């Protein structure tokens, strides 16, 4: 259980929530929990921080004064910047998608027949992104060590030359 990716699904529509949860549960490497409100998701994240959250944009169709998706997204990204949030909405308006990206959503999925497949692809893209980011970080570290090594070598050569312990090359 410990090596599974923890995923939270937040949607106030029970059918939508169950369908997404069931679909993602087909993949054994995920541990999935679902919540009807953003407030419950935030409370659960304080106990166990998920790596990925699928978050509905409109979370107040059942409870009118419930936090909406954007507010939950802002709070999640503020507290856990490493967490990836995929927004889900029935609205296919570009300004809604742009708005969610502005607040740090990884992807934006429009509810409908293709949405479950898109959710699966979003998971794959998150993995690929983090793997690439890991490789880039390792490369950056390697280049930093190499740079420091070269610098130390130059300092050593200059020091040895100044002490007359080695001769300067002809072109020097």
């Amino acid at each position, binding site marked *: 259980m410990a090596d599974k990716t923890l995923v939270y699904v937040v949607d106030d529509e029970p*059918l*939508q929530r*169950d*369908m997404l949860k069931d679909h993602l549960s087909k993949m054994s490497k995920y541990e999935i929990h679902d919540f009807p409100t953003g407030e419950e998701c935030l409370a659960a994240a304080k106990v166990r921080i998920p790596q990925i959250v699928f978050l509905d944009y409109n979370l*107040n*169709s059942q409870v009118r004064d419930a936090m909406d998706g954007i507010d939950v997204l802002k709070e999640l990204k503020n507290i856990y910047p490493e967490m990836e949030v995929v927004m889900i909405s029935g609205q296919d308006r570009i300004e809604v998608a742009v708005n969610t990206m502005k607040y740090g959503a990884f992807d934006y999925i429009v509810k*409908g*027949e293709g*949405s479950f497949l898109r959710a699966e692809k979003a998971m794959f893209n998150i993995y690929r992104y983090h793997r690439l980011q890991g490789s880039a970080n390792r490369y950056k570290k390697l280049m930093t060590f190499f740079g420091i090594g070269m610098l130390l070598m130059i300092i050593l050569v200059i020091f040895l030359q100044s002490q007359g312990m080695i001769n300067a090359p002809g072109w020097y």
Partner: protein
Amino acid sequence: MEPTKSITDLTYLKSLTGGASDKMSKYIRMFITGAPVSIQQMDMYFLNKDWAGLRQSAHALKPQLGYFGAKGAENLIKEIERMAGDQVDLDQIPVQLENFRKQYELIQSELEASLKELGN
């Protein structure tokens, strides 16, 4: 005599669930339990002239209709969502709500028949 044309289509649901009848039955049950509540909510929001609430309820129901292939009802609910969201043609909303209710009754009876066929 031509057979009556279905207003639902479970092709998508079948493909999503890989034909698992228990899952299909679960989703159908959830829908026919939840949709009447949403319809009641929409009526209430209309009576209270709560256009944001009406738009929100219609919006939430819209993708669910698509999962059951109820395209006609999906178009009706899109219209209700648009009218409430933009606050236009408000006098047409009760007519559209009534049309939607009639469509939903047919959807429900078709889905109940599907539940029997699925045997769950």
